[in-house]
């Protein structure tokens, strides 16, 4: 009997890129549901819009570059990028924000750098930074979380759709439904020399981080831990980021709790948890070796805190990730494991 010769290994592969990406998407669901609970269906609409734009643009770019469409579209990497981006923008941001974002992510950050696996910068973060710089006003319009405004004021599906497509309906005003985020308040407060305890009087603060935000972070962490357990991501980056944030902020808080927020506050506000588990762990733009991953995480933590404390933006996660993306190849170079039998 004749056979076609197959190459080793003769085992079904343990993993595929699309399996990895699908599990990442699955792991995001608890956090997404928490966001919907606190901020309304706008979150889902943003996700849907971004995915739509991302897939269309991915398709167009593959076509233009003469690449096979099916395997690359079904790797779901564009979908993950789209979701991560959508989770970073205000739930009622106008539709063209996600269009601009996805052009930046898929066309510029991904395909102009050579497509999947070749990009240097995290596409979702490139997209976020582009819209943050280009449309600062739209990007600050975060809704007040459930519990802080009257439930009737929380926009429903139709209202959300309408707002995203054609702007806020006449019977609503941005002032009534939006609120500064905890990180904004913290930054302003510290700049005005307020005590942390004073700043934390504001109703947006919860037990550790921002109200609502801390729950969302919990649910993202849950998904992230599941990913670690499934070995989709390794523990190194998330642990490095969170441990570094604690270790850096702990001494300051111990020294002077009145002007330095408790470490947990840093972790549970903004996009830090989302970043630690889902954004900084993007393999393409991160480090490959274990030691490299730890250094990468440490770098993200330091840069995030630096930007939060002294930079012009309340949350530095996106900038921190992009900066570390630049260093990733260098870190990988200097954290090369020692090959078997070679001198130590």
């Amino acid at each position, binding site marked *: *009997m*004749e*056979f*076609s*010769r*197959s*190459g*080793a*290994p*003769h*085992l*079904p*592969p*343990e*993993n*595929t*890129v699309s*399996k*990895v990406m699908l599990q990442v998407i699955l792991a995001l669901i608890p956090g997404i549901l928490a966001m919907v609970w606190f901020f309304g269906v706008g979150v889902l609409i943003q996700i849907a819009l971004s995915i739509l734009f991302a897939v269309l643009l991915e398709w167009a770019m593959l076509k233009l570059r003469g690449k*096979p469409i099916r*395997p*690359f579209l079904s*790797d779901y*990497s564009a979908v993950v990028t789209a979701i991560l981006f959508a989770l970073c923008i205000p739930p009622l941001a106008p539709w063209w924000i996600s269009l601009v974002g996805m052009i930046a992510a898929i066309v510029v950050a991904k395909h102009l750098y050579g*497509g*999947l*696996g*070749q990009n240097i910068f995290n596409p979702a973060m490139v997209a976020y930074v582009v819209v943050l710089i280009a449309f600062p006003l739209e990007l600050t319009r975060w809704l007040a979380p459930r519990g802080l405004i009257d439930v009737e004021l929380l926009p429903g599906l139709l209202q959300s759709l309408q707002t995203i497509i054609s702007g806020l309906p006449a019977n609503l005003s941005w002032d009534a439904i939006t609120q500064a985020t905890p990180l904004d308040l913290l930054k302003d407060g510290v700049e005005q020399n307020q005590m942390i305890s004073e700043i934390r009087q504001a109703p947006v603060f919860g037990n550790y981080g921002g109200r609502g935000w801390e729950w969302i972070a919990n649910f993202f962490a849950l998904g992230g831990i599941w990913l670690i357990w499934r070995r989709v991501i*390794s523990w190194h980056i998330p642990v490095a980021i969170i441990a570094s944030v604690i270790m850096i902020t702990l001494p300051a808080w111990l020294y002077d709790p009145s002007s330095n927020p408790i470490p947990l506050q840093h972790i549970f506000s903004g996009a830090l948890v989302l970043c630690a588990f889902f954004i900084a762990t993007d*393999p*393409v*733009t*991160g*480090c*490959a*070796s*274990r030691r*490299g*991953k730890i250094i990468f995480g440490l770098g993200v933590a330091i840069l995030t805190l630096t930007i939060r404390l002294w930079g012009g933006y309340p949350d530095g996660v996106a900038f921190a990730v992009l900066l570390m993306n630049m260093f990733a190849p260098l870190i*990988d170079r200097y954290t*090369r*494991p*020692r*090959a*078997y*039998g*070679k*001198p130590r």
Partner: protein
Amino acid sequence: MDHSSIENIGKHLHNFPGGLKLKHYKALSCSKPLPAQQLPLSQEYIIPVSQHLGRPAEIIVSPGQQVKKGQPLSVPGNASSTPGAYVHAPTSGEIVAIEQRPVPHPSGLNSTCIILRADGKDDWIELEPVTDYRQLSRQQLIQRVQMAGIVGLGGAVFPTDIKLQGGAGSIDTLILNGAECEPYISCDETLMKQDPEKIIQGALILSQVLNIKRVLVAIEDPMDACYQKLQTSIKTLGAADCIKVVRVPMLYPEGGERQLIQVLSGTEVPAGKLPVSMGILVLNVATAAAIKDAIIDGKPLIERLVTVTGAGICEPQNVVARIGTPIADLISFCGGYTPGIASLVMGGPLMGIGLQSDSLPIIKASNCILALTHADISSPQVEMPCINCGDCVGVCPAGLLPQTLQMVIRAENFEALEELNLDACIECGCCDYICPSHIPLVDYFRYGKSEQRVRTVERKQSDLAKLRFDRREKRLAKQQTERRARHLKRKQALAGSSDKKDSVAAAIARAKARKQALTTTPRDSDSNTDSGEQS
């Protein structure tokens, strides 16, 4: 190599980096005892003459000749720089042809095979058993190993006599490798269960050959039955003071020579060196058993245990098969293929070779014939770009960066491979298996290694050429100065007597002409000067 870790070898176990925990599928083939009846004689045996690592053998039979079972068919050739091994007739019969046939080899190319038609009598040549091998000298023992055509049966097929010869006096530990770590393969486990005494006897012979007091038999942790059986044989043979059985945790590629040494001793074999340099020799347990057969019974290596397994086989089991048996005969002995059969592999699922046909023969390296169904191999995967996930880095037991290597090879930047230590890659396939992008990493590495070899040869050649060129330049310069000196001397001598002026002028003219010839036709001058130097 510091001596203390060798002293403590096997006492504590150590870890090696990376590795894979794989589903092992061993029960499939080794839950049953060996079949009671022998594999029936095949009609025709296909015996490749180079089944070992090294130079091809010299064929000493010709078509039409009758041979007996165990008669040598080919002997190692004369070039003493490369190893070679004897090949013997697996049964009695007639040599019908010597021709090129496809053989199990990664290249898929043909190779010279001796075709033997069995006469059904299965007549042995006269064997020369020895009653007390202890009377034999070291050289005699090694010679018997060589004449029996014994090669490493773990799959590396390096001629064993050369390993033993090379280890003369410098070895102090022998490791018998029974840690069969690749999924599906269970022939060593079966051997240890069925014939533990053979292995221990082989070990005792080897300890005499090597003049050592320490033999470790490494088996995998879950092999309880083997452990008991080996221990019992060690006791009955009174070898407890020099042979120890060590259980190592089950982790692929634990059974790799270098990984096993690392696990047992905590030290690595230095790059570019062999385990012998640390005083360690590693042989497969099946090789030890074959050595017992060769020394005590005088039987050459003409059969081996083969695991026939996989979901594509009706009755998976371990079978004693003669070298040269067409694989198809083995398959039908095991009940034939199941309907889903999709591919045939020699060896395990991680390092095995895909076979193009079951008409290929069993060779000395065939530890396993693996028949896989469509479900086992799944549809051919599209190769995606590397996403730098680092999974391959995490599983590599050699501490390499497969993703970087892959990139460098793709870019044909072969110079960078040395710095990235491609030579340390043992082609275990861990990275390849784990890669979510299904990049055929090991294929890239084999290609990279062969390119590296080509480059080394080229570099050597160009270095040699440069050396020759430099030497010749020097020689020419030296000659010129000598000639000038001679010339000067003669001129001074002649300065007194002017009557010989004519002949001097003629001589000068001759010398000038020669000098011209030297500079214009360097090739000729090269040979001239060579002879000139000698005179």
